[in-house]
């Protein structure tokens, strides 16, 4: 947990409504997820802007887990470093959790966890969990699980969150399992009642229903949205190998596809999901499918990206569409499998040996995960090249409030594929790697096409326009130049950056992906302190003139990212021509999502230089 710098002063006489953060500390495997989700949904249903971040260990049972919920009436959805309320359910971390709790805060703790050093700048609420749960007839195996409802009730009491909302959220979570709903609710009520009977509620924070913000918005994980995007993008084959934090993307696809993608005529699957033996096979299958004219996709994280390097080079050079989702976690190496990072940007952009540059997309919300979920396939087909979508654990595995998923506004685009008729007409004029349109993209044919002109021989070795093997220097040069020309075409086809300009010419911020909420919040804070900023959110590589212009238009542009090397900054430096003092890197990389506070401080420091 990070050091807390400032103490929020409670100077307002009235309550602080819908503005606080709380963290629940438990051990994993105890089933606290139900409780946390119930809280999240209750708040969401009340119309309150809320965000939840799960900080979990890379094991299955018994290690510390924290769930942090932030409620923000202003609609700020980034991770906050401050924490007003801590729920201590895990003896293993309680001492530290209690010690690092900020002054003025409330600590709700299982009374089985003793308070090591009693501080007088925080308030303790004891929850006699064991005795409260005792009356319920629950087998030992499930005791820990239902116990978690005690803190739900206690928080409801503390925040004056109506128990009906807890009930509704439970119904939502445990769909139709009535006795389970009932049991959980009763335990929560016991927690509520205990507090109500024991304590006077002097806490300053309250939740109240709100209108506007959540209307028509959805609460969803990025991985789920991404999977749905692929479903609506006509994905044919999801070949994958399990790896945190990408597994839930593939699993969401495996779950959604049978629901939404059975052939309306025959009821049969129009898709396949194959758990491969490793990442090399996963990408190989996806490429095989793309080559044969279906839409192949794989999902992975850092170690898998490294293993896919050779195959991505093949797809690049043989010009085969394929989509790869990299839900980033902390690297290098196995790193921290359950912590977020944006450390694969450079790897992804230049993946594989030889001269390669790839199309990379950076969604920053569930809505955009959905959009890039289908668009990535269109781009891959259009450009006949791998498209890598880089998201991260924070966006992928946490619940985010998002604009609703938007139905594709374009029909499926299969790119330049010739059918038998077209081929028979073109006859000898067609060459697999002949650039007839000047955009670097040639026409391809699919196996199975009933024309004598359809067949060609695909290879990752040097080839001429007819795809025949060639070692001729000029053939190589000519072909690679065409492939690189595609990259120029790509600059125009990829999603354009999202730009907010209202600050004039001094400071520009550039960021990407899941940093978006933190940057938005920081901009508000900065504006409040007299530092207005413009903002460009990179949505894709390769970059284009718009980005260059943005940088050139500002005295200083700060590139904000969650990695150690400033990888996006490096790529922008490579592809633009501005002096170092005009393009500054602000990066951090400790496994947590960036906070608005850190960004604000960074920008203030830079502007004070």
């Amino acid at each position, binding site marked *: 947990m990070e050091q807390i710098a400032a103490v929020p002063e409670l100077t307002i006489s009235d309550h602080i409504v819908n503005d606080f953060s709380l963290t629940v500390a438990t051990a994993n495997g105890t089933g606290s997820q139900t409780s946390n989700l119930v809280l999240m949904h209750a708040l969401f249903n009340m119309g309150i802007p809320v965000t939840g971040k799960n900080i979990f260990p890379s094991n299955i049972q018994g290690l510390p887990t924290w769930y942090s919920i932030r409620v923000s009436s202003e609609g700020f959805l980034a991770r906050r470093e401050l924490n007003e309320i801590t729920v201590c359910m895990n003896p293993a971390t309680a001492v530290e959790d209690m010690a690092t709790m900020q002054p003025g805060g409330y600590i709700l703790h299982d009374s089985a966890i003793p308070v090591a050093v009693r501080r007088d700048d925080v308030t303790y609420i004891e929850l006699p969990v064991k005795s409260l749960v005792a009356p319920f007839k629950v087998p030992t195996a499930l005791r820990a699980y239902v116990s978690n409802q005690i803190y739900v009730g206690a928080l409801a009491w503390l925040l004056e969150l109506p128990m009906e909302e807890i009930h509704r959220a439970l119904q939502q979570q445990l769909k139709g399992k009535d006795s389970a709903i009932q049991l959980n609710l009763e335990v929560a009520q016991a927690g509520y009642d205990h507090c109500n009977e024991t304590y006077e509620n002097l806490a300053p924070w309250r939740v109240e229903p709100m209108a506007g913000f959540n209307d028509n918005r959805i609460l969803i994980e990025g991985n789920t949205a991404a999977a749905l995007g692929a479903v609506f993008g006509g994905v044919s084959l999801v070949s994958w190998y399990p790896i945190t934090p990408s597994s839930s993307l593939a699993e969401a696809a495996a779950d959604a596809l049978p629901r939404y993608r059975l052939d309306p005529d025959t009821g049969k699957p*129009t*898709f396949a999901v194959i758990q491969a033996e490793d990442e090399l096979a996963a990408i190989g299958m996806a490429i095989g499918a793309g080559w044969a004219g*279906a839409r192949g996709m794989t999902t992975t994280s850092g170690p898998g990206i490294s293993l896919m390097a050779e*195959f991505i080079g093949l797809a690049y050079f043989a010009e085969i569409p394929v989509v790869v989702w990299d839900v980033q976690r902390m690297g290098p190496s196995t790193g921290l499998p359950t912590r977020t990072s944006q450390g694969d940007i450079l790897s992804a952009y230049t993946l594989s040996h030889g001269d390669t540059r790839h199309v990379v997309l950076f969604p920053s919300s569930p809505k955009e995960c959905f959009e890039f979920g289908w668009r990535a396939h269109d781009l891959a087909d259009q450009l006949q090249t791998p498209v890598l979508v880089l998201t991260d654990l924070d966006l992928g595995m946490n619940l985010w409030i998002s604009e609703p998923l938007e139905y594709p506004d374009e029909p499926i685009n299969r790119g330049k594929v010739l059918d038998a008729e077209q081929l028979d007409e073109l006859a000898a004029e067609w060459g697999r790697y002949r650039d007839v349109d000047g955009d670097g993209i040639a026409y391809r044919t699919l196996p199975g096409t009933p024309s*004598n002109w359809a067949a*060609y021989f695909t290879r990752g070795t040097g080839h001429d326009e007819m795809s025949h093997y060639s070692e001729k220097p000029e053939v190589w040069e000519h072909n690679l130049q065409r492939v690189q020309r595609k990259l120029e075409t790509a600059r125009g086809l990829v999603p354009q950056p999202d730009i907010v300009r209202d600050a004039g010419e001094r400071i520009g911020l550039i960021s990407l992906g899941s940093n978006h909420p933190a940057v938005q919040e920081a901009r508000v804070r900065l504006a409040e302190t007299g530092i207005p900023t413009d903002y460009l959110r990179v949505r894709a590589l390769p970059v284009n003139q718009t980005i260059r212009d943005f940088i050139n238009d500002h005295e200083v542009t700060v590139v904000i990212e969650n990695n150690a090397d400033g990888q996006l900054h490096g790529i922008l430096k490579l592809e633009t021509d501005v002096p170092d003092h005009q393009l500054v890197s602000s990066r951090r990389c400790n496994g947590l999502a960036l906070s608005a506070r850190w960004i604000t401080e960074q920008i203030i420091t830079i502007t004070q230089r």
Partner: protein
Amino acid sequence: MARKPTRPARASGKPRRPALNGLGLPKTEYRGRPSTLCKGCGHDSISQRIINVAWEHNLEQHNVVKMSGIGCSSKTPAYFLQGSHGFNSLHGRMPSVSTGAIVANRQLEIIGISGDGDTASIGIGQFKHAVRRNVPMIYIVENNGVYGLTKGQFSATADTGQSMKYHGVNELPPLDICIESLAANATLVARSFAGDPKQIESLLSIAFKHRGISVLDIISPCVTFNNHDQSTKSYAWGRENDLVLNIVDLVPPAEEIQIEDYESEIGIEMHDGSYIVLKKVGENHDPTDKRAAEDLLESAREEQKFITGLIYVNEDQEDLIEMLDLTETPLSHLPDRKLRPPEAVLDAINGRYTPLGTT
């Protein structure tokens, strides 16, 4: 682009007409580009067998895809079936690419060509898992015990004690492609010899009809890199005359080793003068009996003989496409409306994630 059927211009007098198959095509239509392999390489004989069987079976070439990894063997798909798409992929990775391709289009017939290095060394993992999935394809290993294309290092199927000019003596036990296939639950396992046209063609015919994966382990002598110092045959003169010892890039022309049909066993002298013994599966071997198949292979391994013929077949096991229960229409050819659910579906999904309305 000489792929369009061409008929020889009618000359005066009675023209010699080539034999045509059921599709009205001469065998030349089933050829590929000229081979760039060494003269006498076993791999070229295998290509010829594929051409023959495809022609005889009236194969529609556009429904076939030729897949391969990297190696001399993996180059061969360029040298047969010019009318079929081909994919010379990555070293050791043909199985995964083939899996993707057949999932994309279940109507394709896949002929996969690999080498022993490609399959048993770098590719053993993908090989075993493709076998385990029963991917419907013909999987041919053109097995020469060496890495031809990288100039003659030992592969994982090289015999123990085999010696190679620049690489000393192999001390490791070989992996046996057929035993490996059976261990991984292959549904068709067969072995043959590149120079045995009849047996290969009959095995290919069976494989074309098999439901799942057909593993054909075909011993295919490398004329170039099995020439070691102890060789007894074509190099004899050179050895006596101190001539060949320092020549790194000399590949003397050699003849393919062809054998006649044999009864139960045949000994074959290889290009390097070494000797292998092929032993046909007996008449009363029941290829549906897995333990018998294993026994056969293991006892042959002990005797240092190679069992040839159809060793094992199982037509009961579902293949991958059946397990996936895919639509009959290939996924690659589904219309957009089957690939993208209607907008109402998305509306309903969004609905599931929006705040609960007040009850």
